[in-house]
């Protein structure tokens, strides 16, 4: 399985990627929206885990572009600001699910699996 993690907190995103690798999930990492969109084009992942709040291109903006670029790729949103409002807005834009930081890795994997299954 190949996924893409997008978050401006490099420490967070690389560590999370390593943990996922340990569990047999291949995780690509991008620390801003532009890089993420480039990666999706060059090496399309099965699923994108996207932080909502990022400098530069915001999470919701990136979500819109992903949906425009490859609508079939599921996106799970991460939010640090426990606001359901952002979650709901993201879902309306086509996100498959959302999670609140700090995340529980088992929960994340479960959601990834569900989203991919739904996709298929």
């Amino acid at each position, binding site marked *: 399985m190949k996924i893409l993690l997008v978050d401006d*907190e490099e*420490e*967070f995103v690389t*560590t*999370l990627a*390593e*943990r996922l690798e*340990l*569990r047999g999930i291949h995780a690509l990492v991008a620390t801003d929206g532009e890089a993420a969109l480039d990666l999706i084009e060059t090496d399309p992942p099965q699923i994108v885990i996207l932080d909502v*709040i990022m400098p530069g291109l915001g999470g919701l903006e990136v979500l819109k572009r992903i949906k425009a670029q490859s609508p079939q790729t599921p996106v799970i949103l991460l939010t*640090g*600001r*426990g*606001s*359901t*409002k952002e979650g*709901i807005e993201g879902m309306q834009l086509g996100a498959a699910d959302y999670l*609140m*930081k*700090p*995340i529980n*890795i088992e929960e994340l994997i479960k959601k990834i699996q569900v989203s991919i299954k739904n996709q298929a």
Partner: protein
Amino acid sequence: MDKLKWYQRLTGGFFLQLDDDSPDRYRILRRNIVILMILITIIPLFVMAIINQYEYQRSIKNEIVNPLRTLASKTRHSFELFLEERLAIVKSISSLYSYKDFSDQKTLNRIFRVLMNEYCCLVDLGLISSEGIQLSYTGPYDFLGKDYSQQSWFKEVLVKGLYISDVFMGYRQFPHMAIAVLRRTEDRIWILRATIDTSKFDELISSMGLSPESDAFLINRKGFLQTASRFYGKVLDSFPLSFPRGNYGAIVVEEVDPQGREMLVTYAPFTKSDYVMVLVKLRSNVLRSWYVFRSKMLFIFIFSVITIALIVFKLTNTVVQRVKEADERRELAFREVQHTHKLSSIGRLAAGVAHEINNPMAIINEKAGLMKDLVEYDAQFREKEKFLGLTDSILKSVERCKTITHRLLGFARRMEVQLEILDLNEVIQETLGFLEREALYRNIILRLSLADNLPRVSSDRGQLQQLFLNIFSNAFAAVEDKGEITITSWEEDLDTVGVSVQDNGCGMPEETARKIFEPFFTTKKQYGTGLGLSITYGIVKKLGGDIKVNSKEGEGTIFTVYLKKKAKFESGE
């Protein structure tokens, strides 16, 4: 207060003390209003009463004094007419007849008889020579040859040509008066003198028709009674009051007589003789109507003052009560606004803090998670157990932080509300479901006293669940094991339903109860965030309801929530 200008003292200054928070301020306000109102109502009343009394007294006096003067003048006039008539008779006959006629005893007798028949009261008639010797006389006495030359009346008649005597007691001890007329013929001077019985005076006085409490009589200018007086004795007794001398029409004087009676005395002096007509009335009699009026006035005045005082007190009490209530309402509203304001600013702060903390927390979470993963995947790791314990501890702490930040965010969150028609009892039972396990474990007795036909409410299920969960959790925290929690629901009024949660736990002091809805106020020190009840308060307010706490230390606490049947959303962050 020292620097106040006079007009401030007069107006606002009077109420200035109200600004301080002294517990006496309502008492002072009440006192000031009462004084002010009493003053502005009683003073005009008082002034009016005095003016009224003065005016009425004056007019009533005029009304009484004028008739007295008229009566006295009229009676005086009758007396004067009577005297005038007698004088005219004596003058006429002195002209009609000659000296010779009068000196002849027979002729004199005849004249006297005729006069006696025609005019009353004539007692005797006599001729007196210019030397003062009685030359002829007809009447009951024998005055022939009597010498009057040394008597004062004789000297007076020689000078003035006419004399009217004061009343005197004659030989027979009844009152008389004498009239003497001087005649000058070519050859001689002679005097005709007549004596008149003054009993006619009494008739004149009785014709005045006086009441028994009044008295009328004549006095001479020397102050001796000329007719009998009811109050002051018989003829020729001395009149005890001093009276005004001189000539005047008729005057009324207030006097106190030697017996201490207050009298209204009318004096009417005669113009041509030395008599004064006196009319005496008891002052109290005359002024009876005035006294009646005065007591009526006094009664009305006292009655009005009492009525005004009562109304003023009652009114002031009501006004002050209203002011007090308004102040309390304002204070309450102010506190609520303050509280809401505090909540919203703290909410913003909390959201910011939670977000900032969540990111590093996520890093710690992942790092610790990776460490744990690495240890778990490495079978040969030496201190595996200890290491796993350490990472678990870190992860648990992160979890705790997450709970706090999420709660903070929940507190700050402006939740999207979804309205649905709900059975409140159902929501309560559903929410209690979360706590059933704890109740069972701690042997807590849950008593439900839910109204059977509680009207359904239109509200948000999630919000209500959160609301009740917070209150229930609080009650669970308050009671000991085997404690008791009673949940009651009822219909409060047409728009409102009420739910109360009563526990028999530790209760809390008043101080705590007052602060309990403030954010970050907690007594649980170690594991409370101090946000639970603040969130609860926010939810209730958002739903347009109200929440109250009633607690007694050591006895327990009752939380009462009032919810509108149709939730009315109040915006607030």
